[in-house]
């Protein structure tokens, strides 16, 4: 489903180059549940952003279902994301002046989906934050915000879900719940890629991609 060939990503800040990704080659099949692990600063988030079409790569090829999308224009990329990708950001990226309910509703509005209430409440209940639907993100704990962000990613029914540290702010029990939840969705045929520090989470996935200093390390 997804194929990366010689993907490179450089950041230039004040004339200083950071080679975040050096030469990434990877293949991900439909329906896989994949964990990306690596030390801090190794390039995990950057890789996930490129997979999600949130960021351009410096060079390399990205095939999605056989189509080369590396040279897509911003608007083509937008349509690609809208159809295929749900993204859970490391910092949740919730709109602070909107309630939990409104935050989760947003992707549905953007896709002009009707009968939103039922879908939203279902996901909120699944994440255990249904009774907080009228709270603002900043009135909730980090874990609750994270669950809100996950609920928002799950409402849209896209084939690929990308999650950057989805269990980072959660205790072990809740982490387990979330993981179970991901596994359940994965069983429905969705491709899920999770960036994580937590080896317990990683070991529960179908496959682990370890990335070190911008390169994929072979796992022994």
């Amino acid at each position: 489903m997804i194929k990366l060939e010689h993907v490179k990503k450089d950041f230039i800040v004040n004339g200083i180059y950071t080679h975040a990704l050096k030469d990434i080659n990877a293949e991900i099949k439909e329906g896989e549940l994949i964990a990306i692990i690596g030390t801090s600063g190794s390039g995990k988030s950057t890789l996930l952003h490129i997979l999600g079409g949130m960021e351009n790569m410096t060079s390399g090829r990205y095939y999605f279902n056989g189509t080369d999308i590396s040279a897509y224009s911003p608007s083509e990329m937008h349509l690609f994301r809208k159809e295929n990708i749900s993204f859970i950001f490391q910092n949740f990226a919730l709109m602070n002046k909107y309630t939990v309910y409104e935050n989760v509703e947003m992707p549905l509005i953007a896709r002009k989906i009707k009968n939103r209430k039922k879908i939203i409440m279902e996901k909120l209940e699944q994440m255990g934050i249904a009774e907080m639907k009228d709270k603002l993100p900043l009135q909730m704990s980090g874990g609750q915000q994270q669950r809100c962000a996950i609920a928002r990613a799950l409402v849209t029914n896209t084939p690929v879900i990308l999650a950057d540290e989805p269990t980072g702010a959660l205790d072990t029990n809740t982490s387990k719940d979330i993981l179970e939840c991901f596994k359940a969705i994965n069983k429905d045929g969705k491709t899920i890629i999770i960036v994580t520090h937590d080896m317990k989470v990683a070991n529960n996935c179908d496959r682990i991609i370890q990335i070190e200093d911008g390169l994929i390390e072979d796992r022994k």
Partner: protein
Amino acid sequence: MILNFAFDFLSKNIRKSLLSVFLIVVSTLVIMLSVILSENRDEVYETIDTLLVCGVEQTVELDINYGDDMGLEQLKEMQLKISEFLDDVSEEAEINCIGSYSTGGYLPIPELYEIQKKGGATFDEYLNMTSIHKNAADMFKIEITSGTHPSEMKFESDKDYLYLGSGYKDFINPGTEYDVNGYKFKVAGILDESQIFFDDNFTFGISATSYSVTHDMKYEILCFSDYHTSRFLLCANEGYNINQAIEKLYSVAEKYDMEDYILYTTLNDKYEMANQEWLFIKNILYKLITIVCISCILMLICTHILDLLSQMRNYGIMYANGFSVSDICKIITIKNIAVSVFAFLISIIICLLAVNLVFKGYEDMSDVFNRIIVNIAIPLSLAVIVLITVFITLFSIVILRKLSPLRMIGGQND
């Protein structure tokens, strides 16, 4: 849906929205003020120009001043001489007419005074009349609804001829004659409702309030008589310019040994002179206005940029969650238009209210100002607002189009 988001963003950032509204209101009002200040001058010129049959360009104001250290006999002699001189002057081909006019209290005619009281009489028991020399019958644009027009009237020297304002028309008929202590008056006609006339000693005023160089004639009276004051207007004939007329005037005056008594200023010069003083004030005003206006517009742009930056994260979240950049641009456009329209309406209301409050009781003036506001001030400030709105909106759109959702959200760290 997009509308909802636009108004949501506005109401969730109410302070910033109100600041934008405030800035637009201030700059619009300032623009309107400057238009009123500059347009007002031309209104004065035009009013006078239309009231004078020959127009401002062809008219000169004369001061015939023969000194006050004269005995009664000498004075009478002098006045006779001036009369002859004036008759002589008006015969010349270069000169259309010459004559004086003045306003003051005249002999009481109770019947007319009762009617004038309704319009607010100026004097006790005496009629307020504008007296025009018979020679100047063709000088002013006078419209009548009944009676004989002054330019067609055969004036007899033993009477004065009265033209009454439209307020008298139901009570007095043309042809009515009065005899007050041996002075004879005849009502020669009734003036049209639209008739206006110069205020006493009109000058081109400097401030907006001295705009009022004319007044309506509803309860006023024009009196054509043989009476001269020392202030005259002289109009050049068609085909001659005003300088030729003045030259002729002086050559006739030489014959009467009077050239030293006559001082003249063309109305055009007077207008320019008043304008000079006015220009000085206007310059300062315009500088102030420009400063206020530019700082408002700059602040407005800054507020919008700040707003764009502070909303960038939200826009990015929307972008990452399926809204397209053009959806987001629509939201920004609607937002900006809503703020501008709202602010613009407030400005118009404030401006109209202010003019009508300040000039309460001066119907003419508030009419003129309302016309200036509607015809010039509103379109001009509308154009400015539209320009600013378009600029700000385009600016936002250009910036948004360049950014990825990740950049908009501000990277992964807030």
